[in-house]
């Protein structure tokens, strides 16, 4: 019982913290990734609240699909694509090497 409540409290606090981080993380990509994490944790909370089917929808649509849309949009608006999919761009790498 108390373990359950403790778990719920930690989950709740993590949700609030993630929400804040999504809004304040300086890197937009990081914010979107945190948003996806927020959606997945939210789905976890809904499983805890006896709503597994809604949790499924949130994970698939709320976190997954919205997240993918956001990543794609963030890619366009920052002029860069999501790092995992990015092909090496010679010009940019030169700049990176020039820094140190």
């Amino acid at each position, binding site marked *: 019982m108390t373990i*359950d*409540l403790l778990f*719920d*409290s930690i989950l*709740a*606090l993590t*949700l*609030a913290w993630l*929400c*804040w981080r*999504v*809004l304040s993380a300086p890197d*937009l990509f990081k*914010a*979107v990734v945190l*948003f996806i994490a*927020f*959606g997945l944790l*939210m789905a976890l*909370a*809904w499983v*805890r*609240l*006896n*709503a597994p*089917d*809604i949790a499924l*929808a*949130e994970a698939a*649509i*709320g976190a997954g*699909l*919205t997240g993918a*849309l*956001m990543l794609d*949009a*963030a890619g*366009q*608006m920052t002029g860069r694509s999501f790092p995992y999919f990015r092909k090496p761009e010679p010009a940019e790498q030169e700049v990176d090497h020039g820094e140190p």
Partner: protein
Amino acid sequence: MSEFLIYALVAAALFAICLHGIITRRHILRKILALNMMGSAVFLLLITIAERNQVDGVADPVPHAMVLTGIVVAVSATAFALALARRYHAQTGHTELHDEDGST
């Protein structure tokens, strides 16, 4: 402190944080992210209510149906907003809402 109160209070907190985000963040994507999380906060409250309303282990299905409807409506509005934002960005290069008079 019960499960109901924990989640209901965090839903309230999320809603307030997201409102703050919408007001102060100027990047369109941040605003859309905040609106989306605001939706999640409302859905969390609804699911908490469903759990509170349970009878013999069956949660209230009406808020569940409302949330499912709400998720689809929210993703529709989000996707459309993103499409507009991207078009706007492609046309102007701006990432925040600009008027001719410069207000946001």
